[in-house]
Every structure is written in structure tokens, then in C-alpha cells.
């Protein structure tokens, strides 16, 4: 499986089999027996309040969090049997605080994973330019800039570009747009939907924002206290909530909310 050969691999499926995580010194499990299957190319949102285990579950995929029980499979392979460094180079990772490397400029940041994979200099340069254009930034203007010179929206876009630079088979995003203002957030969401559709990357997206979940998701996984409350397509959640919590979360039965959420979804996908 040569992840460094550009664009040859199909998007990976992600499977959680009875995944349990307990942080050392904690009285209860952060994630409790979660089983979930995500097909290649899907954009699945993990939705829930803070502390529900969604971020923890996300980070079991690239082994930033260790499992206490169960298995996680990416593209059918148990992640526990893959070298973690190799694994992570094949999976994109975007976090809310972005974490652009302040000792490097924008071009070097975006080039991180390709350079780790040993791409040659001209391949890297071409890819960096391509990515900057993909996220709507002029390569000539932005390549040499340093992270501190960027606006919130620009920084987050570059964070996404860095994550997808080496054409990963899966993309993990942990509340990536939480720190930017609403207008920028909508623009970023639109762009994400476009990029994910183009690259067909399997995407696992964590948020606590119900509206964001509705806008982006092919399917939503509602979580609470380390467990899954319900997995369903957005409209399904609205029409057939399975628990009182879900009902309350999505304002099921409230026609105004329903129209509002579905409208947001449409707008994001308008040409």
C-alpha cells in the first residue's frame, strides 16, 4: 500500500467495532462500546455536547488516542497493526486551533506531509500551488507568508490544505470551524463540501453545532456520554428521532427549525 503515489487509492472506509476508551485516572469510559461503519467517500458528522466522547472517538482513528477495548479499521486494516506514523501520513487531520507551524511559512506548512513521504521538490511545489488555488488563495501571494500574518479564515483553509496535501484516504476534522466568525464559517463549510465532493475523501467531522451537522453531513452520529444515541441521515433524525435527547437536540416536530436546517443544507450546495 504505497500512500505516496498520488491519487491512486480509493477513499477508505472507517469501521469502529465496540470501541471503548478510558483515559488513565478517569472513573468512567470516555467512549463506551461504540460500533459504527463509515463507507468510503462518506462525510459523517459526530454531533454532541462537549464531553460526549466525539473528539476521543475521532482520535482513535489515527491512534492519537489509545483504545481500551474494541478495534478500529481503516480501509479494512486494523489500525493497531499499522505503524502509527505511517497511518497518520495517510490520514488528514484538522483541529480547531489549526496548529499551523509558526516556524515555517505557508508553503512549508502545506508541504509537510508530502515532504515526510519523500516526494521530490518539484512534485511538492506543484502540489502546494495546486492546493492553494484549490482553497482560493493566490500561491504567489501566500506561499511565503508566515502563519501570524494570516486571518482566521485563511489559516483554517491552509490547515485543511495541509491535511489533504498528500491525498489522504480519509480526513479527520475536530470542530475545525469553531473559532471563526459565522460568515467565514459558512464560506469554509461551502468550500469543504466542494473539496470533499471533488476528492471523494472519506471525512469524519466532529461538531457540537447542530446546524453545521445538518449542512455538511451525509449521515449524522449523535453522541452522548460516550455512547451513540442515533445514526441517521439528517432528515431522518428530524422525522424519526429515536431518543428524547435527539428529539430535543434537533427540535424535532418544529417545522420552522426543519425548514431552516434544510435550507442551510441547500444553500451550501448551490452552484
Amino acid at each position: 500500500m504505497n500512500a505516496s503515489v498520488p491519487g491512486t487509492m480509493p477513499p477508505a472506509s472507517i469501521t469502529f467495532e465496540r470501541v471503548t476508551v478510558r483515559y488513565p485516572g478517569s472513573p468512567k469510559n470516555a467512549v463506551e462500546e461504540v460500533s459504527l461503519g463509515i463507507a468510503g467517500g462518506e462525510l459523517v458528522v459526530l454531533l454532541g455536547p462537549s464531553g460526549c466522547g466525539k473528539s476521543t472517538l475521532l482520535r482513535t482513528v489515527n491512534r492519537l488516542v489509545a483504545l481500551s477495548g474494541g478495534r478500529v479499521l481503516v480501509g479494512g486494516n486494523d489500525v493497531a497493526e499499522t505503524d502509527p506514523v505511517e497511518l497518520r501520513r495517510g490520514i488528514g487531520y484538522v483541529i480547531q486551533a489549526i496548529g499551523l507551524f509558526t516556524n515555517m511559512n505557508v508553503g512549508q506548512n502545506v508541504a509537510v506531509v508530502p515532504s515526510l513521504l519523500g516526494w521530490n521538490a518539484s512534485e511538492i511545489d506543484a502540489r502546494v500551488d495546486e492546493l492553494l488555488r484549490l482553497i482560493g488563495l493566490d500561491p504567489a501571494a501566500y506561499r511565503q507568508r508566515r502563519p501570524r500574518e494570516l486571518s482566521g479564515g485563511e489559516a483554517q483553509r491552509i490547515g485543511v490544505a495541509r491535511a489533504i496535501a498528500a491525498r489522504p484516504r480519509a480526513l479527520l476534522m475536530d470542530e475545525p470551524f469553531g473559532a471563526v466568525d459565522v460568515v467565514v464559517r459558512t464560506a469554509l463549510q461551502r468550500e469543504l463540501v466542494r473539496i470533499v465532493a471533488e476528492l471523494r475523501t472519506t471525512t469524519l467531522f466532529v461538531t457540537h453545532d447542530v446546524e453545521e451537522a445538518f449542512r455538511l453531513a451525509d449521515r449524522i452520529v449523535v453522541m452522548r456520554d460516550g455512547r451513540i444515541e442515533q445514526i441517521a441521515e439528517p432528515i431522518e433524525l428530524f422525522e424519526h428521532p429515536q431518543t428524547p435527547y435527539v428529539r430535543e437536540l434537533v427540535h424535532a416536530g418544529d417545522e420552522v427549525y426543519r425548514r431552516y436546517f434544510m435550507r442551510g443544507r441547500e444553500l451550501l450546495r448551490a452552484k
Partner: protein
Amino acid sequence: MSYLVEHPMRVGLLAAGHLELVGLALVVALALALPIGLFAARRPRLAPWLLGTLGAIYTIPSLALLAVLVQLFGLGFAPIFVALVVYAQFMLARNVVAGITGVERAQVDAAFGSGMSAGQVLWRVELPQAMPVLIGGVRIAAIAMIAIATLGGYVGGVGLGVLIFNGLTLHQPQMIVAGSLAVSALAILVDLLLRLAERYARA
């Protein structure tokens, strides 16, 4: 003052010896303090104990430590060299810890998440960003070591301390003054150079 003017070669040679002693000790001390500091930085619960121990060692009066080292190594370059390396650990290791832990957590998280090995995270992200703090630690350590190295004149015939201790034995105040002035000048010069380096690293 007159001694400096009348014996520029002698003072110059002793100053060179002083710098050589401190320079070598600094290099070796850094080679030790980096792994120690990294070890402590990765273990937040252990770090205060480790740094506290080094700090306690730092408070041992230099003459006492030197006496022990002379027993082990005899007189000459070795005991003062070892003493300097030992004393420098506290300042250097502490700054390594401060520098490394001062790197934004999100960047370290993103670095690991991007598939860097621990060594690559250190080399490509943490160390470059820790540089200004590290150099600051080197600067502080260097100044302290220039001062402590005057004891090299007591046990090793090395450095500007020779002027000071000979001056004391021979009851020649101008030697003592010359030695002290030269040590101060050295310290000021080194401080200046390293401040420039620190500023350059911050850029």
C-alpha cells in the same frame, strides 16, 4: 587598571584560557542538558522533581563541590571543568523544559497528527521554536559559568581567576582588580553577543 595596560598579553592569554574553559564546559553541558530537559519536558509530573534536584545542586557552594572534585580528579583543568558542567545543568535544563513546553500544544498535536515521528516533531517543530528560549538559557548559563570559572585559578591554574588568586596570595591589589575587570568585561561581551543571537533566533 595599570596592570591591564602593562600586561596585555598575559591578561589576553588568561582570558583566552577562561573562554576556552567556559566554552568547552558549555558545549558538554548542553549535550547533557538537552536530553535531560527533553526527558523532563515529556513528563510534567516528574519535571518539578527533576528540576528541583538540579536546583538544589546549584545551591551547593562552588568551593565545596570543587573540593570534592579535586579529590576525584586532582588539580588542573578537570575539576573546574566538571564543576562548570554540573552547575550549568540547572539553568540549561530548565530553559530546555520552558522552551519545549512553551510550544503551542495545538502545533504539537497537529505535528503528530500529520505523521511526524517523535524525533521529527522535535527537530522540525519544537526545537526551532524553542531556540530563543534555549539561547536565553545558554546566555544565562554562560554568564554564571564565567563567574564560577574564576575558581579555576584556585584549583587549576586556568583562566582569569589566576590573576585574582595570585593577587590575593601576593597581596597585589592591582592584579586582583585586573582579573576582576577582565572577568566582568568578558561577561558583558558574551552577554551582548548572545543577546544578539537570541534576537536573531526570534526573527
